[in-house]
């Protein structure tokens, strides 16, 4: 295969790692929020909230892994709009769920 020379700035690798860091930060946040939900009581409302946290985290996992795979080329395309909106949506949803963990 005739590959162009590797980018000396390692931009795709650095961007992949940035996605990993972001996913890691969201994971810590999700676990912290989940801890607050179950630390006092575990009823149906708490289980629902944990499930919503897990689904939100899963959404970011899917977005970031699709992007990480897309970055595994020599000339990756620009981040798609939907991926950017998805990632922001996950952060906003986590903020809303954080408010809910305080009131249930």
């Amino acid at each position, binding site marked *: 295969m005739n590959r162009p020379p590797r*980018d000396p*700035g390692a*931009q*795709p690798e*650095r*961007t992949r790692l*940035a*996605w990993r*860091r*972001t996913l890691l*930060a*969201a994971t*810590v*946040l999700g676990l*912290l*929020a989940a*801890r*607050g939900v179950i*630390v006092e009581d575990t009823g149906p409302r708490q289980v629902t909230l944990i499930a919503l946290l897990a689904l939100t985290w899963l959404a970011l996992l899917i977005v970031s892994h699709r992007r990480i795979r897309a*970055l595994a080329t020599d*000339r*990756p*395309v*620009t*981040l*798609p*709009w*939907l991926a*950017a*909106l998805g*990632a*922001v949506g996950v*952060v*906003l949803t*986590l*903020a809303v769920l*954080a*408010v809910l*963990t*305080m009131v249930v």
Partner: protein
Amino acid sequence: MEDDKVNVVAASLSPSRLRQTGTTPDYRFSLANERTFLAWLRTALALVAGGIAIAQFLPPLRTEGLREGIAGVLLLLGSACAVRAVLHWAACERAMRQGKDLPVSRFPTVLAILVAVGAVGLLVLVLTGTFSA
């Protein structure tokens, strides 16, 4: 400026419009823009995590609702950071496509001032004994 904001909303409704404008910049610049976007997302996540940590680990304060208020402000700041992250990412992407200067923004300054004022405010609360039961 206002015009830009409207365009961003329109672009988010029809993503192809962002791609159609101007020419595709060097992919390395787009990736740098993407990493800046992600760094802002992590800032947003950190602010939200700070709000959750306050709500979970700070004991109830003498002033009713102060703890929840501090947590709420952090959650709002985090949300604002996330929304602004995607708007700024799109504005930078469009500026690069059209060969214009990158947009400048007051947001980082405002956020830094808010965090500094908040930190000093909390220090005052600690020193005046509002936090001790």
